[in-house]
């Protein structure tokens, strides 16, 4: 197994085919990376909204309770 090019510059150029090969590779890798990053983003976004909802609800309940107790005080 040998490195097929004399330099990295030549590998980038690929005897004139470089633009084609590298566009294909980079676009594909970009799409593949997007396929992995997107679910990760959504994953954390969902967890965040759930915890926000929970906090809001807890707060709501607390206010409700405190309102009840203050009424009892009267």
């Amino acid at each position: 197994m040998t490195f097929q090019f004399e330099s990295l510059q030549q590998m980038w150029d690929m005897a004139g085919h470089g633009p084609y090969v590298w566009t294909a590779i980079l676009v594909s890798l970009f799409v593949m990376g997007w396929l992995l990053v997107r679910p990760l983003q959504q994953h954390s976004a969902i967890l965040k909204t759930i915890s926000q909802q929970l906090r809001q609800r807890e707060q709501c309940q607390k206010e409700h309770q405190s309102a009840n107790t203050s009424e009892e005080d009267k």
Partner: protein
Amino acid sequence: MASARNWNWFHRMGSPRWFYETTGRWLPWLWVLTISLVLTGLVWGLAFAPQDAKQGNSFRIIYLHVPASFLALAGYYLMAIAGAIGLIWKMKLSYMVMKSAAPIGAALTFIALFTGAVWGKPTWGTYWVWDARITSMLILLFLYLGVLALQYAFHSQEAGNKASAILALVGTVNIPIIYKSVDWWYTLHQSATIKLTSAPSMHPDMFQPLLVVIVAMYSFYGLALILYTRVEILQRERKAGWVRELARQAETQEPAK
């Protein structure tokens, strides 16, 4: 009793929570495996495999084109089978897998088409020819888009799942017919100047890296599918206690960072 035990695994597998927790343990390994395989395969293919006698360096696109086409087609069958399991056994997890497989499959089909077009330019002097395989791939993309569009057209998650499962199944019956007819149509109209069939035997030095990227693509597909399915699970089970607990934990961890 015995039969109950035999079916236990099946029901456990149908539990979204079980899936979420088990795959959570696999994920780090799968990330490492995927990234190392993709890197190895691509570096090997791009830098160390010998260049093709006729096509020169442009043939190196094969190292993404072939695995992507492979998984694009296999992914459709996976999606249809998951849909069928959902319809027959009313297994929610199965629908989630089906729903996750659609965008991944569509993206891979796009990659296959795009790399094919870019490969075509230096090799045959044109980005697009109405070749049998290219045309079939384009139709496959349309089939994926149909499933995706149908899934999101319904307000009701359940109706969307069932509808796209049926559509995926109808598509599976049709795929061989479509492929055969496109093949026949192509031989009818084929002009002699362009022949896309590759050389029957490939040099081992070229073939070995191809094998590596195919395995890498399978691993990538598994990883992406698991990630998407986990998102689906959180979305569907957001009222369940364990998901709430998870959300609380994630919240307490975040400010610490």
